[in-house]
Structures are given as structure tokens and as C-alpha cells.
């Protein structure tokens, strides 16, 4: 009698656990992605006064005492339960993995904003030669196989300099 009661408690406990982890994952993932996208949009608007180019030269550079300098930024964004699940389904049928594509895009946008922020903090108003590349901190599918932790690691660098204002 007692034993079956204990078994039942354990059963219910594990059932709740099994249901709640995906649920927390789905809700948490949605909320964090939504909030991140909103904050990206807001900060991108704020950063629109900085001239961002991918050119190797210095467009519209002006003479100033400030020597151009390199700026760096890096971002690692984790996948969530739902994204990983969608990607696994995609792995069966093939095709574009939208959930991971969005994750990479978020990471790139965040890195670019951090580059801009770093340039602004040092008193520059333009960055050129923006380079964004992917990194692997060991969580990738390549090195871990089945136990992979999908994540978007982006490494960015650019050169900050003084440009004449466009107005």
C-alpha cells in the first residue's frame, strides 16, 4: 500500500518534470527571442547616426587627432528547446532551418551593435571594414555529434575612425 503510494508520487513528479521542461523551454525561448528582437530594433535605431561600411578604405574620413583603431565584439547565443526540436524535424525532411537561421541573424545583429557601441564609447563616429565570422567554442555539432548544444557564436571586428558628418 505504502510502496504503491510512493511510486505514484514519483510517477507524478517525473510526469510534471517531463512536461514542464519542454514547456519552460518553449515559453522561455519565445519570450527571450521576442525581447531580444525588440531591443535590437530599438538599439539599431539609436545607432543609425554611426556610418557603418564594409569598405577597406575610409569613406568620408576627416583629419583628426584621433588615430583609427580596431574595435572587436563577440556574441554567443544559445538555442532553445523549441528551436532544437524544429531543427531535428527539419533534419528528417531537409530544407531550410528557419529557427537556426533567425538565431544566427540575431547573433550577427547583436555583434554589429556591440561594434558600434565600442566605437562610440571611444569617441568615433564611423566604422569601416566590418568583418563578421562564425566561431566554434566547442558546442557545435561538428565536435559533439548527438549531444551537440546548438549555439550561434559570432566574432566581429572593424576599424573605427572619425568621419565628416553626413549632414
Amino acid at each position: 500500500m505504502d510502496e504503491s503510494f510512493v511510486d505514484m508520487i514519483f510517477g507524478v513528479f517525473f510526469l510534471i518534470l517531463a512536461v514542464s521542461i519542454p514547456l519552460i523551454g518553449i515559453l522561455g525561448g519565445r519570450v527571450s527571442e521576442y525581447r531580444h528582437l525588440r531591443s535590437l530594433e530599438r538599439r539599431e535605431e539609436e545607432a543609425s547616426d554611426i556610418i557603418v561600411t564594409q569598405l577597406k578604405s575610409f569613406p568620408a574620413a576627416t583629419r583628426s587627432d584621433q588615430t583609427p583603431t580596431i574595435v572587436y565584439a563577440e556574441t554567443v547565443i544559445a538555442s532553445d528547446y523549441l528551436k532544437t526540436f524544429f531543427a531535428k524535424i527539419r533534419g528528417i525532411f531537409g530544407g531550410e532551418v528557419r529557427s537556426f537561421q533567425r538565431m544566427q541573424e540575431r547573433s550577427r545583429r547583436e555583434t554589429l551593435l556591440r561594434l558600434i557601441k565600442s566605437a562610440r564609447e571611444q569617441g568615433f563616429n564611423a566604422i569601416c571594414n566590418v568583418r563578421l565570422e562564425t566561431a566554434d567554442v566547442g558546442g557545435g555539432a561538428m565536435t559533439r555529434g548527438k549531444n551537440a548544444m546548438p549555439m550561434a557564436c559570432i566574432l566581429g571586428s572593424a576599424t573605427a575612425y572619425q568621419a565628416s558628418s553626413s549632414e
Partner: protein
Amino acid sequence: MIVTNTETIVGHEITEIRGLVQGNTVRAKNIGRDIMAGLKNVVGGELKGYTELLTESRRQAVERMMAQAEELGANAVVNVRFTTSAVTQGAAELYSYGTAVVVEPSRVG
């Protein structure tokens, strides 16, 4: 020391080229960060621990590169590039390389 990832530096003239300089580092993240990352992979969001790891690695690689440039008597490093590779499961390599040069402020803008 002036470090840029462009081939030229505005307001400066490259007078001498001292050659390729490089710096690399292989860093491992500790198990605590791994566990935290595992949890974060359920709910999503930024993996701050791994971002910090990349920042530290990059700083170290650049420092080594700059030390090499200083040894060659350069006062600037231009055209800096980065690459990464995953050496094993828990460790990542960050490699930075550039060209060590001697620059002088140019007389006319």
C-alpha cells in the same frame, strides 16, 4: 601601438613593412560554464560565459600578436584578421594575424 583591420591608416603613411605577426591561444571553458550553457540551451538567450571566453581569448591572441610586432620594431599592425577552430570538445582556438608596419603621420591630409 596602432591596430586596425584596414590595409591603410587614414592620416598616416606606411614607411616600412616588418612582416607577418601572429598570436594564438587555445582556451578551455570550465565545467561550471558547460553546465550553465546546458541549462541555457533549454530556454535560449545569450551565453554570457561563452561570450566572455571569446573576449578573453581574443584579447590574449591580440596581445601576443602585438608583442611580436613590438619585437620587430613596428609601431602599428594593419589588416588584422581572426580565425577560430574547435580543437577538441571543450577547447577553442582563436588565432589573430596581421602585418606589422612602421607608420608616420602624413604631412598633408
